């Protein structure tokens, strides 16, 4: 049965090129776990079929029995006890194999401290704050809800939480790890296939747990480098009157109370860093694609898109809205 499930999975993976699937590993860690999964199938499916066969046999045998009321069955039990013994041995063997294998894989997942890229992710209700760490402060930068990882390099991710328990889970890359207030967890990712993957919060974290996802781009070395250098810079200064208007609105009204845009006066960390918003492909932690339409919809009534989100509804004049949208979309 599980075998059928698993082939179905393969077909499905091929068809949709899953961006969020444990069955389509794209990193060493997920690969190792995928191995355990196959081993499990090879041990458990036969076990299951064996029991079902026994069940079928028992029923078939019983159907042939004529049964008069009042007679009590008697059978030699010696052979049965032998059977029981063998059965227990078989089960124990299977379990031993699985325990050992899972122990070995578990070792592989323990982060070594020699990663080239170090990231700190802080989960908040209901988005991800991402910091690319570096010993040289000038080389550090902050973004949100989107990761870029260099292909075939170890990335060390430090996981924290600012409010409740969240869980960082990008199934194509590795298993999940909880983000617990007052504690620091770690996970290591070594991606082997370039592409776009999707992660999501895997621990129930309140109203918008369902819409707390993040995108992970695994880039060739040089693409990663260029993305990185782009992120390091401050936000481009507005080149037109409209953009200027948008920037002014951002700095002088509600937006600046929670958000940061480097190179402006907005420096609050209550909400996602928007310095290079336009370089991302989604907004609101993956709830909406990034484009003028959805951005305008989000700004004018966030509570319709994500009921309960901490982004407040503001009554904003149409021309202000247009200017603001234009400005945000200019933040490449």
């Amino acid at each position, binding site marked *: 049965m599980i075998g059928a499930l698993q082939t179905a999975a393969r077909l499905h993976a091929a068809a949709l090129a899953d961006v969020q699937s444990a069955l389509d590993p794209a990193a060493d860690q997920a690969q190792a776990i995928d191995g355990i999964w196959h081993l499990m199938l090879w041990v458990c499916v036969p076990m*299951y079929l064996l029991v079902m066969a026994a069940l079928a046999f028992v029923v078939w045998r019983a159907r042939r029995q004529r049964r008069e009321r009042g007679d009590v069955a008697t059978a030699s039990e010696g052979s049965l006890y032998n059977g029981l013994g063998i059965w227990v041995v078989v089960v124990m063997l299977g*379990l031993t194999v699985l325990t050992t294998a899972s122990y070995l894989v578990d070792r592989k997942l323990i982060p070594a401290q020699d990663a080239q890229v170090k990231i700190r992710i802080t989960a908040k209700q209901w988005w991800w704050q991402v910091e690319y760490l570096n010993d040289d402060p000038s080389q550090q930068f902050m973004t949100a809800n989107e990761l870029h990882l260099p292909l075939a390099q170890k990335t060390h991710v430090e996981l924290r939480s600012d409010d409740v328990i969240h869980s960082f889970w990008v199934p194509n890359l590795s298993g999940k790890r909880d983000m617990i207030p007052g504690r620091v967890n770690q996970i290591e990712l070594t991606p082997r296939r370039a592409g776009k993957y999707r992660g999501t919060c895997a621990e129930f974290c309140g109203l918008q747990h369902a819409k707390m996802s993040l995108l992970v781009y695994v880039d060739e070395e040089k693409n990663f480098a260029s993305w990185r250098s782009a992120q390091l810079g401050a936000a481009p200064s507005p080149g037109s009157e409209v953009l200027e208007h948008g920037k002014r609105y951002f700095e002088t009204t509600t937006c600046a109370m929670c958000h940061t845009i480097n190179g402006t006066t907005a420096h609050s960390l209550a909400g996602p860093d928007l310095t290079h918003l336009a370089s991302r492909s989604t907004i609101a932690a993956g709830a909406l694609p990034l484009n003028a339409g959805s951005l305008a919809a989000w700004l004018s009534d966030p509570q319709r898109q994500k009921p309960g989100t901490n982004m407040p509804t503001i009554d904003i004049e149409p021309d202000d809205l247009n200017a603001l949208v234009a400005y945000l979309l200019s933040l490449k």
Partner: protein
Amino acid sequence: MATRKPQPAPDVPQHFSDGSDELARTWADAPGFWGWLTTVDHKRIGRRYICTGMVFFVLAGILALAMRTQLARPENGLMGPDRYNQLFSMHGTTMMFLFAVPIMEAVAVYVVPLMCGTRNIAFPRLNAFSYWVYLFGGVMIWIAFAMNVGPETGWFSYVPLANSDYSPGKRTDFWAQMITFTEVAALAVAVELVATILKTRAPGMTLARMPLFLWSMLITSFMVIFAMPSVMLASTFLITDRLVGTHFYNPADGGDALLWQHLFWFFGHPEVYIIFVPALGMISSIVETFSRRAVFAHTAMVLALVTTGFFAFGLWVHHMFATGLPALGNSFYTAASMVIAIPSAVQVFSWLATIGTGKPKFATPLLFVLGFFAIFVLGGLTGVMLASVPLDLQVHDTYFVVAHFHYVLIGGAVFPLFGAFYYWFPKFTGRRLSETAGKWNFWLFFIGFNVTFFPMHYLGLIGMPRRVYTYPVDMGWDLWNLIATIGAYLIAISALVFVVNVVRALRSGEPAGDNPWDAPSLEWATASPPPAYNFAAIPRVDSATPLWSDNDLPALSGLRSDRREILLTTATDADPQITWGLPKPSSWPLWSAIALTVLFIWSIFSPWGVVWGAIPLAVALTIWFWPSPDDRGLISEKSR
């Protein structure tokens, strides 16, 4: 005990169900509704316990339907996140705390004393009290839910999400107090069952001859006793954090969020086995009866039950693999979680062997047992998968886990439970359920169940997390969710068939007779439904399957019929020791339960509720335990 020839006295009973008029008077309840309120008869209380449990089962099932309907389509607008979160919190809370554990204890409350061959459960007033507390707790949380004060942080209420910062208002406080209600009830019943099984077994029913159902309930009761204090402590810490500002779960002030998870799962994992072990006992009873032979390897089965109960306390951390605890410790829990598969394997083998070497009759109860094999074994195997730390890190908190524990809990507990209903219903009511409807009930349930939950394995693997009120369009989850929703409605239909079947049987089912299945254990020796005193004389047992002997059933006379007297026997060999008077019906368990309810609800709004609320409670309890002059059950009329 003086053994002598039976003299033909006028009141020597011919059958277990023909007691003298005096005996009947002694054990009779007050007539009418007052009698219904004050009864301490384990059969009446067991019946209402079962009914209440089933009502909560249906209610929680309706919530499940609502959730499946919301998830049938991506981006579905049927309900918002707040409503959905309350729905799944209530679904889990109701199923675990108000259905699964109580219903198992409820069946035991009815069946255990009969199986032991005694006249009532030990501590009958405590039994009545526990029912009222359970009922009031359940009603309270459902009214709170109806008034938008339902729990919103899941049946597990992880902190800090359940702390004041992130769960404002009284929702979580009501949840925490509901826990206290249900735990008080469950613990009381556990103590009654331990005492009943160890002290009131019919003479000759040594531990070696004790039916496996009694064994499973004995072990379950001990598990309840050791596991439930943990969650009571946890929820008390939670509510004090929320009401008087303690810091147990506050990492900023020396507390820790994981303390909750340790305490909760130290209860929460045994909880699963507290639900599962009674089902094992039910299966043994059913298999034995319908294959007409004693269960193969009785000793091995008992050992399997004991080891299951023991290891159940060594697994809780496998719910916390993703929290980043030391890897070595995790590996230990992996091993432990794997080991617990062995006793289950032993039992499955023994049952199959029993059926195979017996002469089985495939009536509905046995059908549900066969369904159990097909479903539970699969759930057990996915359980083995989840025991592996690395694989768990992938599928933990996904629909794979949802599938797994529904296979284990519905397959492992609810299917045997339905089997048990069909098996014992004639004893409960004196009427038989329709076999045809039973088969429909089973097949609809079996198919509907697999249609609902099998696709969820796959959903989890392709990345669908649990506890989401909606999901995006382009994830490839739509089809499988739709299928699961359809299956859920199939289950609903089968539940409907069951209800209709029961109602029909109650109205016009064919009379069952004492022992319709020709079963071997003592509950079938007396009438269906049994008289208030269960047994006119105390049965004596000289084999594990007493009713399968062709002679007249041996019994002991000499228990007084002018008061509610039972026979106490030694714990291991069941040798007669002393007789013991049980209390008469009383309304004070009810008043005490009401006082306790007031105390608990009051304490949600003010800590002083605990202090002032304790006064009426103390008064009620005092009157409860005060031996009233007319209650000769509570006094001794002999002296040494």
